[in-house]
């Protein structure tokens, strides 16, 4: 039996301990904002926060999550999350939208550690998140805009 916190609530899982966190979140907890994209930590669509840092949930066995604090797109909050959400909406970042939960989780984590990121900071934090619609141009702009609003 594995016990962990999901968006602040205590949850347990007693299935196959190899089950990746992604499928626990989606199939068992029915939180579907976190997406499957590759299964091998190449695309970042499955990005969640684990104990405050980004984590590719598709390669994270649930057995390693014991006692951890998991935050998904459904539970992310705080001033960075608010700023990112507003910035994303203001310039219509998403196209198909499928990767955007992961993009937002990575972007929020970036602002939590680097409130005023440079383009290089953005490249470093976001290069693990693929967007096949290539909304990168607006992702970069939205992160800068969010940082500006946090400052103000």
């Amino acid at each position, binding site marked *: 039996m594995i016990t962990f916190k999901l*968006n*602040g*609530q205590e949850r347990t899982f007693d*299935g*196959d301990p*190899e*089950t990746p966190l992604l*499928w626990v979140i*989606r*199939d*068992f*907890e*029915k*939180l*579907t*904002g*976190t*997406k*499957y*994209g*590759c*299964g*091998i930590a*190449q*695309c970042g669509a499955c990005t969640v926060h684990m104990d405050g840092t980004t984590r590719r949930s598709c390669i994270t066995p649930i057995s390693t999550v014991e006692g951890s604090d998991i935050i*998904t*797109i*459904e*539970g992310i909050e705080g001033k960075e999350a608010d700023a990112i*959400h507003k910035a*994303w*909406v203001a310039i*219509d*970042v*998403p*196209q*198909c*939208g*499928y*990767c*955007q*939960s992961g993009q*937002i989780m990575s972007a929020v984590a970036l602002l939590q550690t680097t409130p005023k990121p440079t383009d290089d900071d*953005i*490249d*470093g934090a*976001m*290069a*693990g*998140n*693929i*967007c*096949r*619609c*290539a*909304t*990168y*141009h*607006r*992702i970069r702009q939205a992160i800068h805009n969010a940082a500006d609003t946090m400052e103000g």
Partner: protein
Amino acid sequence: MTIHNITATRRSFLAGAGLVIGFTLAPKVFSAQALEGVPAGGAETLSPMNAFVKIGADDTVTVLSKHIEFGQGPFTGLATIVAEELDADWSQMRAVHSPADDKVYANLAFGLQGTGGSTSIANSYEQLRKAGATARAMLVSAAAAEWNVPASEITVSKGRIKHAASGKESGFGALAAKAATQTPPAEPTLKDPKDFVLIGQELPKLDTLSKTNGTAVYTLDITAENMLYAVVEHPAHFGATVKSFDDGEARKVPGVVDVKQVPQGVAVYADNTFAALKGRAALKVEWDLSKAETRSSDQLTADYTKMFGEKGLQATHNGDVDKAFSGQGVQSLEATIVFPFLAHAPMEPLDAVFIKRADGSVDVYNGAQFPGMDHKTAAKVLNLDPAKVRLNTQITGGSFGRKAQFGSPYMQEAAGVFAATDGTRPMKHMWTREDDIRGGYYRPMYVHKMRGAMDADGQIVGWDQTIVGQSIMGKADLDSTSVEGASDLPYTIPNLRVIAHNTTLEVPPLWWRSVGHTHTGFAVETFVDELLQKVGKDPVEGRLALLSKEPRHMGTLKKVAEMANWGSPAPDGRQRGVAIVKSFDSYVAQIVEISLGEDGAPRVHKVWCAVDCGVAVNPNVIAAQMEGGIGYGLGAVLFDAITLGDGGKIVQSNFHDYRSLRINEMPAIEVAIIPSTEKPTGVGEPGVPPVGPAVANAWRRLTNNPVRQLPIVNVLSA
């Protein structure tokens, strides 16, 4: 059975998201409308004005989109067109997918329901202007009857219906039910475009909010109680079939429920996704390769090249090409360009959900680019009357052409996997990324042979192009999608010949974002650039001189040259390249600025893009499509190839060896839209073709190396 659509409240974010379809959950029961994606928490009753417009008692206007929303913006674009003629306020507009119906919801360019060819706005423009104007007339007629005033004295603006003389005023909702009973006008009056208030504005997209908070429901997010999860083990060779399999270990995996052979491979059914994947990994399958494609990509290239000498299918022959090349003082240039197979790799791989209802009917959920065809295919495979199958189109995580397949081969597999069960448990069928990358239906391999003739005066007098590759449409004779962009070369060259050869192989082909222009655009635009360089002409001025009969090409090219300040020196170590491609009746010109990257590959710093797509319905969406098209096209020309290795085995399997452009590789982009009163044309695809040749042209000028094989960077050798 009941259907529970959890609304987007903070509490529900934490409790659960997505469209949950359960047998016992019943906090709020929705009708079939919920399955069509009508926004939860909206009006319970929507009054239909016509097949495309419904108005709720709460004043919301819901547009039924016959086109799937997979990121190219039809929900927003189609709603803009309706709202304009309806005189609605943008805040009251909603959009959902229409039901599957090849007649009512036909793409007027195709004759059946389908999204593709960058046609969503082009084919819907007049139809939805009329749908909006008709609904407006019915609301006015209802108001006239209700208030007992002449309809001619009623005005509508920003969602308010008014009669100035009596001071009467109403929103749409209060009159919707009555309006639905009014006789629609035979020929509704449409606005003069100069009076447009919404078309041409940068309106926010309708689907953005749900795509930023995790509440948007894709097919993969649909869950039903007691649902089975199914995956299929596929072969690594095209045309291979199952010889035998051992499922002993697979069946021992906790959660695996069953294993069955299906025509496409071996299906594993389980209680959750991971169990299905683990079970699949434990299968031992022996494949029969007797009918499989066993040639490697290198062998295919050699075989294709041999076909240059054979008699082909003539697409165009103007003037006398052979004579042009043998003229006195004529110089010639020859090039062979090799294009690889390309996978579409949409973020959401193919998936579908099947739920059998108590009456024996079946609900199918998928991201259907051809809903009518998927519907008929599902009914046939499930052996049901089509009236007993409902195809519920979902928003989907990209497609780029992948989800539009004649004969619906994916639906054949998914429905077949469901049909092999007793149907008592709902079932989700999903492809993994590996299934997607290795699943075929690629942009085919092509080899182009280019010959150009230049006379002593520096004029390009002859163009001879031969294109070898599969016919996407499966034709034995000339397939126009193989030669589009070449056979109708925009440049005035007196002697022009384009020949095609169709090839036959086991790798199934498909259209890939911008179809034939993915390769013809590259071949034409790199070769004309090289010829212009040979005769000492400027790439922009030289093109303009050859485009004198094409005013929209000229306007677009001049615009992009102005944006990039063409002619000014590039910064140290950088070089610029240009390309212009007309595709899907839209004109897109791009100038790129590149340098030699640290890894020896082109580093693309900036792209200037000018587009002429007629009336710009929503400039925000148009700019987004240019940006996205540039990124999609750039990733492909830099990195992407699906390769058949020795014996025909597919080499690539996932994003580690089928590279996608990443944010650190994305150039800065500036987009300008040419003002126009021409009919609106497509934007989903036309942003893609020019970027590749523009980069290759800059690369040739920077390094003296012309690009003769794509991708430019071969990740396997890196």
